[in-house]
């Protein structure tokens, strides 16, 4: 029986091999010519992790700067602290969620109104009401301020006008006098990301060219140069990003004139066109608007309540159906018409030329998000077995507001930043796994 014993010992011996996993040799971590020991993120809502029409904890935790910082930590990056909402106030400003689809297949959204971090509403003379949020006073590396334009970086009063910025400052709205530029550069840092400037064109666009204005091109250049000079004052390295084309976002590509017309024609085949109130010229100073039939070059906002179409509107000629006659066009704030689209595109191109030129003059990397998102719009993006597109809800990249991104969208943006940083500074920050982040949540 001794032989049997030997056999069992041998069997046990070979079985221990079974514990051995294949090993991979990790590349030697390097930050290259950059220093990631204190990374700060400068920017607006995209930088803050804004999503689904609000800033809330889950969005913050999946902000692209936090993703980049986490990956940077594998090559010597320091801690990265964000002004997170607390668990008890996890829903922050409130946001919208998808509650289902109606019989026609359209998504139904509902606001989330519990566990908010809203502190109050403060009337600011000469400006209006400002919603304020629970203050955050700890260390901070993420300076993303929703709603902020490049135009605002030197405004000393801005801490009174933007509740998200006010939240980070010690004083209450009405008493603050720290310009954003001074705030972000107050504490030393070694590396920055700067994705500022989107709102200088985007806010004009999302308001249908009616509720906001485009930042003057020359002013943009001056402020961008100033911002970058201050960010690189101590020889810091960093990365800037270009501004996405407004027409690349689902906010403008989901409700189209053709779609509206087709659904009207289902009920009334004789309708030939829908009418919009459109800007008469592509001159930025012109304020002349006139009704005309909508074309494929006109963009309707995602926020347009389509139920208004056909409802009676009182006019001098009597009650006429909304959107279906030249006397009752779809209102300006719901339409970025062809001339406004051209204007927005022209300004964004100019801003991006500035961003690239100023960054290049300082030896700073530029992540070309304009081209990246336009490319996804045109071709989609297949990654890790996922087919991502710029489509609303199903695309996986854009959140329910059609402008900001899902955690998965922020992850692909973070990877784009990382690739550009690595290329510019010979670092090897590892990419993050896109599959680890969610797209839109379905009930």
């Amino acid at each position, binding site marked *: 029986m001794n*032989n049997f014993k030997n*056999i069992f010992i*041998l*069997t046990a011996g*070979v*079985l221990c*091999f*079974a514990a*051995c*996993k*294949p*090993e*991979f040799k*990790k*590349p030697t971590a390097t930050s290259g010519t950059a220093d990631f020991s204190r990374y700060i993120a400068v920017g607006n809502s995209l930088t803050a992790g804004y999503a689904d029409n609000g800033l809330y904890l889950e969005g913050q935790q999946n902000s692209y700067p936090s993703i980049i910082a986490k990956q940077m930590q*594998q090559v010597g990056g320091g801690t990265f602290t964000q002004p997170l909402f607390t668990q008890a106030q996890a829903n922050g400003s409130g946001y919208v*969620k*998808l509650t*289902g*689809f*109606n019989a*026609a*297949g*359209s*998504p139904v959204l509902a606001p989330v109104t519990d566990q908010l971090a809203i502190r109050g509403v403060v009337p600011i003379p000469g400006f209006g009401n400002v919603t304020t949020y629970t203050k955050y006073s700890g260390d901070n590396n993420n300076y993303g301020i929703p709603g902020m334009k490049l135009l605002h970086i030197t405004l000393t009063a801005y801490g009174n006008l933007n509740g998200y910025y006010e939240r980070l400052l010690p004083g209450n709205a009405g008493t603050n006098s720290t310009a954003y530029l001074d705030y972000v550069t107050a504490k030393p840092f070694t590396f920055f990301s700067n994705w500022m400037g989107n709102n200088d064109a985007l806010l004009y666009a999302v308001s249908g060219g009616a509720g906001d204005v485009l930042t003057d091109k020359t002013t943009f250049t001056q402020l961008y140069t100033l911002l970058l000079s201050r960010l690189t004052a101590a020889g810091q390295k960093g990365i800037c990003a270009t501004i996405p084309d407004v027409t690349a976002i689902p906010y403008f590509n*989901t*409700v189209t004139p053709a*779609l*509206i017309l087709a*659904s009207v024609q289902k009920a009334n085949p004789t309708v030939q066109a829908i009418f919009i109130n459109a800007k008469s010229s592509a001159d930025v100073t012109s304020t002349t608007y006139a009704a005309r039939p909508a074309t494929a070059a006109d963009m309707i906002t*995602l926020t347009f309540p*389509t139920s208004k179409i056909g409802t009676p509107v009182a006019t001098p000629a009597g009650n006429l159906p909304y959107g279906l006659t030249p006397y009752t066009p779809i209102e300006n704030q719901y339409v970025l018409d062809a001339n406004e689209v051209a204007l927005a595109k022209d300004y964004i191109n100019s801003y991006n030329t500035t961003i690239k030129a100023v960054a290049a003059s300082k030896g700073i990397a530029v992540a070309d998000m304009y081209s990246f998102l336009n490319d996804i719009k045109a071709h989609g993006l*297949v*990654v*890790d*077995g*996922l*087919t991502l597109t710029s*489509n*609303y*809800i*199903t695309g*996986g990249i854009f959140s329910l507001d059609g402008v900001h991104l899902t955690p998965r969208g922020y992850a692909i943006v973070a*990877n784009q930043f990382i*690739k550009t940083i690595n290329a510019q500074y010979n670092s090897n920050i*590892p*990419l*993050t*796994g896109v*599959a*680890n982040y*969610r*797209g*839109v*949540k*379905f*009930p």
Partner: protein
Amino acid sequence: MMRKILLLLLALLPAVTFAQGFQVNVAGQKQIGMGHTGTGLVQDGASIFFNPGAVVLLPDNSVQAGVSPLVFKSAFNPSGSNDVYDSKSKVATPFSGYAVFGPKASWWKVGLGVYIPYGGLVNWGNNWAGKYALESLNLKAIYFQPTVSVRLNKNFSIGGGFVYNRGSVDLTRAIPLANSSGADGQAELKGSGNGYGWNAGLFIKTDVGLSIGLDYRSKVNTTINNGDALFQVPASVQANFPQPNTFKAGLPLPSTTTLGLGYTYKQWLFAVDVNFVKWDVYKALAFDYTSNTVALQDTYSPRNYKNAFSYRVGAQYSLPTNWAFRAGGGYIMKAAQDGYVTPEVPDADRYYLTGGLGYKATKNFDIDLSFEYERLMSRTQTNIESQLSGTYKTNVYIPGISLTYHW
């Protein structure tokens, strides 16, 4: 009404593929010990698999059963990342069993073999980079082969058998539709089907210690009808994935041709096998769902596999006592071409080393132990369909044991 969302959730659907990795080379423990050679040898009842032409030359009637618990350790390192995902430890248990009967030293023998020439068991979990390509796969093709073997003259014998295959597949994959807590949906395709084929061999025994074997095992087209197509997705999009639903898919198992040489010298036995698998039957793989929707379309995935060879050598040294020692190895060429490698089995060129031990416990009772270590070459791939990009490394550990009673 106008913000109508067409749930064009394409590229969600799984596809089953085979690759060289799915060829399970564990048909007999004596043969595994010798590098899985055996087409040109007369070892034991496993000749039903290796070469039915050799079965008639077996000296005894026999019944044998063996099992080779197979541990498949694969790991994936996504491109540009330091993350490493290990497949979960799962032990597949490919088994084989053979019975051979006939009058002593007669011109004929009959036999029955049960073996698993193709299979795969891998589980990457639901939390890895490629979960939208594959979470887990359990695939088995069990062949049943009644066999007749006939000696034509002193030097030539032939044999052949009918093959009935019972194939089964169970595949899971994440669906990128997050529920309200952010968790993915999941697709599971589960079914089994039947297929038929044959296995024939020629065995030539020379007078100078050299033997030559040639074996051909035909392609076995296995069709899965009425497989269960289970889709777990958030309730608001469930209508796009009708339940219950079934699928139909073909699983063509390729033919193999093997030429084997054996040489006996004193207490030594040497063997060489060259094996050719006609993998090019996998031009593409199609799934046909009974209920289709805009989101759930039938799939057609090009595979474009290439035929591949494997080369095997082995030796055995028998002591005059009851022991036999075996060693061998081989090299297997990949069937999946660049761009078509999937996590189902991260196919790559591979080599393997084997060892074995035979012990005659009594006059009628043999115990055989085998061990095989297979190492797949590291392969960095971007799959054309999924764009899953990274480096696969795989090791396979296969201990095995068989018991034989012969009389």
